[in-house]
């Protein structure tokens, strides 16, 4: 506590990324509203899980490039949205070294998961095809 009041908080640095993140959360939110709900509906009650099997996936669902692209887009959206979201939560509750550590961990996991997901969606060969 200084004796008399003078300046304010230190001058902020770059607002660019936070702005982009904020905006992106909203845009991806709109996209996800459509994508995630369709995905969930399709997977859980348009087709009941009991009707699905690997064969069904590969023959029906991923047999079309369009559907594959759709799923990949969805994957990218979900992951980016979710990781940006978790980043916010982390930055709220952690600070200092722990914050940096956890954020690094998150980014790493994010990348790994994204690569894994992409490999599945884009590169899995249709058995027997």
């Amino acid at each position, binding site marked *: *506590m200084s*004796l*008399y*009041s*003078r300046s304010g908080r230190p001058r902020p640095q770059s607002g660019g990324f936070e702005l982009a993140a904020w905006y992106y959360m909203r845009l991806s939110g709109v996209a996800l509203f459509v994508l995630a709900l369709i995905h969930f509906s399709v997977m859980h009650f348009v087709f009941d899980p009991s009707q699905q099997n690997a064969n069904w996936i590969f023959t029906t669902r991923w047999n079309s490039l369009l559907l594959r692209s759709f799923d990949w887009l969805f994957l990218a959206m979900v992951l980016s949205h979710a990781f940006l979201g978790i980043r916010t939560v982390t930055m709220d509750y952690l600070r200092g070294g722990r914050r940096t550590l956890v954020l690094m961990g998150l980014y790493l996991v994010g990348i790994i998961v994204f690569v894994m997901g992409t490999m599945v969606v884009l590169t899995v060969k249709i058995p027997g095809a």
Partner: protein
Amino acid sequence: MDHPFDAIVVGAGGAGLWAALELAREGVNTAVLTKLYPTRSHTGTAQGGVCAALGNLEEDHWEWHMFDTVKGGDYLVDQDAAEILAREAIETVIELEHMGLPFNRTPDGKIDQRRFGGHTSNYGEGPVRRACFAADRTGHMILQTLYQQCIKHGVKFFDEFQVVDLLFEGDPAKGGRAAGVVAHRLADGQLHTFRAKAVLLSTGGFGRMFRITSNAHSLTGDGVALCYRHGIPIQDMEFFQFHPTGIVGIGILLSEAARGEGGTLLNDKGERFMANYAPKLMELAPRDMVSRAMYQEIRAGRGIGGKDYLYLDVRHLGRKVIEEKLPDITDFARIYQGVEPLKEPVPVQPTAHYAMGGIPTNVFSEVVRDDKGTVVPGLFAAGECACVSVHGANRLGTNSLVDLLVFGRRAGRQMARYAAKVERPQPIANAVEPMRADLDAIRGREASGESVAVIRKELQDVMMDNVGVYRDATLLTAALAKVKELKARNQKVAIADRGSVFNTELLEAQELGYLLDLAHVTVAAALARTESRGAHSREDYPERDDKKWLKHSLAYQGKDGPTLRYKDVSITTFQPKPRTY
């Protein structure tokens, strides 16, 4: 700790902030000390408006404003000062607008103006739109705007520093000059000295010596009492304004703006009783008259239900006007009385509101110490704590804010000029010792003594009951005895808090001491003035007596109570006339 500065401003209300701003603009090294955070100063509660003869909506001239001020003050106004007030009101209001104050606007984008009590066109013909306003939070916007500008100009604020003593080189009663102040830092209880060439007191009013008051808990007259204790006289203390429309029992103010917008006052029979007292201006007569009329109605048994209050009625103004122009006071009625002003009339009673008296100054806001205008070098006062005498025996609504702006600004400018001329005072040895001893004595006393709260309550009761709207010799004599008794008892006041961090009880004990001194002067001056003028109404002397009493009182601290002297009123343009509206 010792802090050298060139200028010090004590109090960050409208007056102090504007002075600080002027000083900062002139590049004078200035500190502002306030016992609150600046935005919590009482200026923020002023609702109705600030008058300036802009003539935005109808013809108006500063001469008319000056006349209203003089007449409103029952001719006890110093007319040279009133002229400055009315003239400079215009430029200060425009300057405030330039600083960003969000005034309400007319359709063509100019500052909007409304009617206010006692402000008339053409020397008393009828109400005029002269009060510039920002909804009903004009004072709030003035305080905020000035604080903002001070931030912009890098003024240094020492928040929550309570000034407890003034420092002088030599005896101020004999020509000594101001040298600084001693302040108690609330956060840790340390005493600091602030040394400077020029010191401004702008500590506001002291309505807290009454039980029912519109004033903040912090308005305890610190600056005024400190001057008095250093041998500087205080002026016109018998004139204390009671505002007609306070919330019953607690005194929170419902602004005159309610009447300015067309609200009416009703008695138990539903009559607009003001027709019998001020047929021309009705509810917009000056406050002293309206308050007296209300007392008379109540005495005649026409209070609501025979009780001691009346109704303020705004229902006919309609929802739009009420919600747009009077939102805050509507809210007050709802919260503090549980009354819905859109549907019911609001119970009101007069409330102690404004001190016309205070530290005598000249028109440059320099403190003067006698009837010849001898200046105390380096000491300045502005705002409610000062008495340039632009309000005389009764202040007109909105004129206090004008006073802050005009004389706060003048104080700042004069201080800058003065500070450029003189050397900074040397540190004064043991400057804080008398105060430290004082505070330690209170803190160290056995807790068996009387508490601050008990003595304060008894003081507020006697002042309210005996020194209120109507006074007479019997009431005042009894009050004088009571105040003396309380002062004696206060010598042994004891507190429970032994700490140094935010020892608010210790500061309240200090403040009680100030109130007692000022009450003493108020009662003594009221007892001496055997006439009725403005806010001072003696039932045993109901007439104004210009032959004997057209003069200001000056009270000096004596051995056992104030010694009274008098000084002439400056009359330049308007000769005293009977005061009717």
